[in-house]
């Protein structure tokens, strides 16, 4: 985990691979698009990543960046 930062949720490598696969496996294709908030919640929730930390529209940490979420 990164030094100097508050401890946040930890993600196992099998979960991280599934995140990477769901996020990026179509990224080079013409019809690819970035996940939107509802899809993000579905992806995170399917991997057991739940709660405010993983909610792209939560204001629990002081507001959001606005606009379409996700990388």
């Amino acid at each position, binding site marked *: 985990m990164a030094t100097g930062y508050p401890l946040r949720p930890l993600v196992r490598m099998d979960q991280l691979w599934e995140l990477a696969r769901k996020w990026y496996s179509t990224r080079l294709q013409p019809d690819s698009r970035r996940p939107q908030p509802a899809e993000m919640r579905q992806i995170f929730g399917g991997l057991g990543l739940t709660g405010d*930390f993983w909610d792209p529209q939560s204001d629990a940490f002081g507001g959001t960046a606005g606009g379409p979420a996700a990388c």
Partner: protein
Amino acid sequence: MDLDLETKLAIYGHFAAVGSRPSVNDVAARVGAAASRVREAFRRLRELRVLVLEADGESIRMAPPFSGVPTQHRVTAGGVTYHANCAWDALGIPAALHRPATVHSRCAQTLEPLELAVSDRGPGPSDWLFHCVVPAAQWWVDIVFT
């Protein structure tokens, strides 16, 4: 196909082929459009958060999962070296390429070098953990830090 989609595909095709970012002129040549129009397409793609651009408004800092600049997360696949924006994106590169890869990185806590083989079914069993510092709602407050 509209210019924004052609531009996006040209950018990702370039990253996939050579591992580094294309310039506006590279993309313009690939899509057969004037550089000024491609530059505008870059900016529209930035607004959609498909790209992150440098302060000059045209150099690609990120086309996730690819990084346009060297990072501590290096990925080799098919004889090409790529750089990823974070550990998540380091796995995103083999996922996007549909190609086995080796990830070279380091532990953010101990700075110990890490090497991870990734097959088409993902990495093998590992007790490594990914620490996501920034809540999802704030990723784009500063996506480079995220």
